[in-house]
């Protein structure tokens, strides 16, 4: 019999073994296999999730850059077209002078 004094700090080996036997549960390997599968699955999902967010950020950045590039070229084209139409219209004073200056510069 073990020392049942409250001051005894050592584990009761005999009782400990009896408790472990009493609480032993069946299907240990199946349990471990299930947990390992869940962990592998979760690790894979975390990996995919990481790639998903990186991909999403890259796609967002590409969309913003493409939008910025498109709007810039569209604005330039609009300005060029409006200047050209104003000059070709010829109704505004000095337009002919400006048009001659521009065409002579291009030459």
């Amino acid at each position, binding site marked *: *019999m*073990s020392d*049942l*004094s*409250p001051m005894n*700090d050592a*584990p*009761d*080996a*005999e*009782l*400990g*073994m*009896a*408790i*472990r*036997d*009493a*609480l*032993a*549960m069946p299907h*240990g390997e199946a*349990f*471990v296999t*299930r*947990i*390992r599968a*869940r*962990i*592998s699955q*979760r*690790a894979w999902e975390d990996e995919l999730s990481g790639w998903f967010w990186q991909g999403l950020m890259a796609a967002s950045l590409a969309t913003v850059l493409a939008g910025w590039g498109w709007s810039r070229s569209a604005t330039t084209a609009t300005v060029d077209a409006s200047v050209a139409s104003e000059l070709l219209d010829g109704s505004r004073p000095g337009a002919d002078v400006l048009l001659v200056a521009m065409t002579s510069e291009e030459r």
Partner: protein
Amino acid sequence: MTGVDEAKLASRASRGDAGAFGELVAFHAPMARRVAYTVLEDQEDADDAAQEGFLSAWQAIGRFDTKRAFRPWLMQIVVNAAKDLRRRRRVRSTEALDHVAAASRDDPARDAGALDLGERLKAALATLPERQRLAVVLFDAEGYAQAEIATMLGIPEGTVKSDVFHGRRALRKVLESVKEEWDE
């Protein structure tokens, strides 16, 4: 598994090595299931809680301080998972406890020695308050130090000592009576 092996595996696992964590699971699963059972007193619930504990530990392993011991850290997570599950399934858990306690009180086969030592110890454990159950199982069966148990359960070390003393006394009575029967 030596402390060094465990520390190495825990270190690898903390860097995201699922295989290393799987080895830790394989080694600690029997203990985690026993400890979860100590709280829940139902095998299915104990498995659910142990599984939840392992998955929570895997989620948190990146934050694990590899200078600390892995085993108490893991077992604290398992104990918390079991307590959470017990709170969620309190009714079912109470029924299970009543069932075991009733079996120990009313089963006429008990006096005839038909219940084996394991069943009697489980029945005796079921009569103890949860904290005493955990203290005596973690200390005597699983080999944790009283200071580690105190940290795990969030109670003073003196309380652990007292719980181990009272829990052990109740279980020892059962063990001794079965041994006497075997001797007769």
